[in-house]
């Protein structure tokens, strides 16, 4: 597929998703809008698979797509309406996990070289990590596996601010460091993000959780 064709498809599919979101603003057309968006996403995944040289990783990619789809079909069929908030929370967390792994592989494989690429990767690592732990805590609370009432640790606010500062420092440091150190810095950044997400979500009560779920949408 030529680059020009690829960009044309990218624009068309983006417009398709926007049209889908627009349809979702009316009750009558909302279900159709969701399907239009889903179809555009499927086409985007197909184009990416066609355009990328999959070679050595093909078994991993196929297994991942097939396994993920199978789990999804089971989840969709079995989900009870009353469980929807925790399911959306869990799905949001999985999106965060995928973002952080994508950024980790980008950094560790040396694909990210410029300061711009390293900065955006660092942001994806931090946001992905805090989304993952925060959403899992939220889903756990909504599902009743974690205590519903807000949990406040000793020095909770100070710890939260400290974790946030560590994240900011590591995000600033990653583009400046030598490639040899970037994996270690990335892992530390993930750890700081996971701790921040946990501290942020654990002190929110069960009833306020749906709000927490919608905040850390992964990048």
């Amino acid at each position, binding site marked *: 597929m030529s680059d020009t064709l690829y960009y044309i498809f990218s624009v068309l599919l983006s417009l398709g998703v926007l049209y889908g*979101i*627009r349809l*979702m*603003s009316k*009750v009558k057309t*909302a*279900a159709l*809008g*969701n*399907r239009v*968006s*889903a179809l555009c*996403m499927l086409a*985007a*995944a197909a184009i*990416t*698979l066609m355009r*990328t*040289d*999959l070679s050595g*990783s093909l078994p*991993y*990619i196929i*297994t*991942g*797509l097939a*396994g*993920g*789809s199978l*789990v*999804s*079909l089971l*989840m*969709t069929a079995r*989900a009870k*309406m009353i469980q*929807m908030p925790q*399911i*959306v929370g869990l*799905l*949001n967390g*999985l*999106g965060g*996990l*995928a*973002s952080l*792994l*994508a950024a*980790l*592989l*980008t950094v*560790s*494989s040396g*694909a990210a070289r410029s300061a*711009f690429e390293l900065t955006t990767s660092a942001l994806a690592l931090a946001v992905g990590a805090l989304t993952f732990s925060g959403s899992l805590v939220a889903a756990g609370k909504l599902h009743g596996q974690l205590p519903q009432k807000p949990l406040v640790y000793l020095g909770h606010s100070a710890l939260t601010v400290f974790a946030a500062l560590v994240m900011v420092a590591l995000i600033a440091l990653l583009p400046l460091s030598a490639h040899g150190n970037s994996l270690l810095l990335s892992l530390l950044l993930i750890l700081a993000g996971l701790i921040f997400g946990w501290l942020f979500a654990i002190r929110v009560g069960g009833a306020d959780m749906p709000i927490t*779920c*919608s905040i850390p*949408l*992964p*990048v």
Partner: protein
Amino acid sequence: MSMEIILIVVFVAATLLGYKLINAVPSLLHTPLMSGMNALSGITLLGIIAVTALSDSVAGKLAGLVGIIAATINVVAGFGVTDRMLRMFRGEQQHQENGQ
């Protein structure tokens, strides 16, 4: 124009457009909308496929496998549960119309 500038412009434009589109949605539809937008954020699937194809170590490929599973569930189950929520909406609406 360099690629970086283009990417930042796309990011800002998408942010503004998203704000404008979401503002028009009635609060009745906020829950399925949140779920649908969450499914869209699984677009990271494209990125993780690309970096998994690039990685040459087994550890990297395994991390990619986990990421692809997570992103696929985010996308497919995300759209799936949103569809189920919205179908229920439609059933409710028909029910009301029949009742009137």
